[in-house]
């Protein structure tokens, strides 16, 4: 909707100019054609730009840095409090359930350099079911939210009573961003200080049966929720 108003305005301006010109201009010169064609093309592209979207030309949500860090804090808080139901689904990037876990112990190990924070919640029952959740903060580039493109920040496998946290596959994110012009950015606070990319670290959250013994790997730090 918002793009229609300026188009109307420009069209009106051109109409006004051409009425004014019609009185005086006897000859229409190449320049006039050029100018009209050019403005016409510009207006067309302006009208078309929002519609070529079709999944490709996205106007992205913008989030401010403050919002990002707030969201991250809230995520963190919710994890610590064990209230994962409160967490926005978009932060949940991977969830796996391991039913009928027979072992008495579970060792947690990592072959991933950056050790994520692991929050563990002990369930009230011994149902032999281990649930693993992976949450990730937002990926933003110049305040545009690209979280959906970040992919899985880490993966994990359960084998022989060992839960191994593995690094994800190398991932390349290539984006082309149409920036606003400096004449807009100057006032919207988006004055460029170079690009600004924020990648927030992932969090792991586990629900384990009541009597499962947890063995921490050498580099792991486990935080038990609600204890």
């Amino acid at each position: 909707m918002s793009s229609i108003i300026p188009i109307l305005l420009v069209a009106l301006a051109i109409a006004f100019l051409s009425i004014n010109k019609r009185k005086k201009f006897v000859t229409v010169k190449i320049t006039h054609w050029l100018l009209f064609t050019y403005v016409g093309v510009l207006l067309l592209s302006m009208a078309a730009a929002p519609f070529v979207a079709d999944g490709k030309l996205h106007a992205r949500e913008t989030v401010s840095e403050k919002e990002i860090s707030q969201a991250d804090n809230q995520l963190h808080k919710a994890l610590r409090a064990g209230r994962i139901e409160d967490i926005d689904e978009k932060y949940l990037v991977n969830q796996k359930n391991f039913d009928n876990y027979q072992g008495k112990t579970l060792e947690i190990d990592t072959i991933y350099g950056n050790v994520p924070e692991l929050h563990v919640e002990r369930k009230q029952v011994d149902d032999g079911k281990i649930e693993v959740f992976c949450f990730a903060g937002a990926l933003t580039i110049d305040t545009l939210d690209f979280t959906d493109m970040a992919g899985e920040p880490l993966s994990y496998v359960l084998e022989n009573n060992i839960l191994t946290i593995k690094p994800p596959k190398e991932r390349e994110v290539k984006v082309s961003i149409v920036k606003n012009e400096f004449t807009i950015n100057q006032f919207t606070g988006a004055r460029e200080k170079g690009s600004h990319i924020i990648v927030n670290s992932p969090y792991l959250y586990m629900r384990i049966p009541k009597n499962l013994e947890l063995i921490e790997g050498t580099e792991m730090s486990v935080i038990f929720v609600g204890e």
Partner: protein
Amino acid sequence: MKVIECKDLTKAYIGKNALNQLSFSIEENKITGLVGRNGAGKTTLLKIIGGFLKETSGTIQVFSERPFNSLNVSAHSIFVDDKMSFPPALQLYELLEAAGSFYPNWDMDLAERLFDYFSFDRKAYHQRLSKGKTSTFNMIVGLAARCPLTIFDEPTTGMDAVVRKDFYRALLKDYLAFPRTIILSSHHLDEIEDLLEDILLINDGKKHLHMPMEELKEWAIGIKGATATVLEWSDKKELIYKNQIGADTLYAVVKNDFDEPSLMKASLAGLKITSVSASDLCVYLTSESKGGIDNVFSDR
């Protein structure tokens, strides 16, 4: 009413005075010819009147206003010469229309008729016109503008004889229908003298003569005859020009303050009395020395 009044008008360029203490005034609705040698200051004077140039000292009033930077003078006068500058992007007909939008008295009908008569192409461009066509087009603009003060500076540059004649006739006819003040500067005084009511002759930036054309025609006479006789007759008269022809014949131009009987006597004494054409007279009046070009060759 006086349209132009100058008093001690001086225009100095670096190291030289183009106009020097020039004083004159031009009456309303007269055609005045501005005559002078090359470099006499004609164009400078006309450009000051048109408000293009700024006077160095003295005063000039056009329509009782100082012309430099006066919108009023600009609106009621037009300066036509062969160097009039028009935007290259506009076609000839658009130039006429533009002129029509600026000048309140503009006569588009006249402009179009002249335009067609001189077979101009409406879609042609000014800078591609030949010299003569440029002058013709500029002249059309100058005539159709019908400005109360119309200045033609060498308007016929490059025109052929037929077009020149057409121009003079067009100028006069339009002047008769719509009298206005016209200043015409030209090298061809013999061609324009019939058109003129007044003549202003300047030399070296100074006024030399300013009088009705009719007076100028009788202002001087030529005497030709035996050298001794001519010298005797022209003694104590204001000698304007003198030319020795052959061994014993002298042609002299003197100011005409003879009365009818003395002229009669002169011709009885064997002198040939002739009238002097205005254009010749102007040449004699403004020549550097009384002998003219012959002096250059005389002492060799």
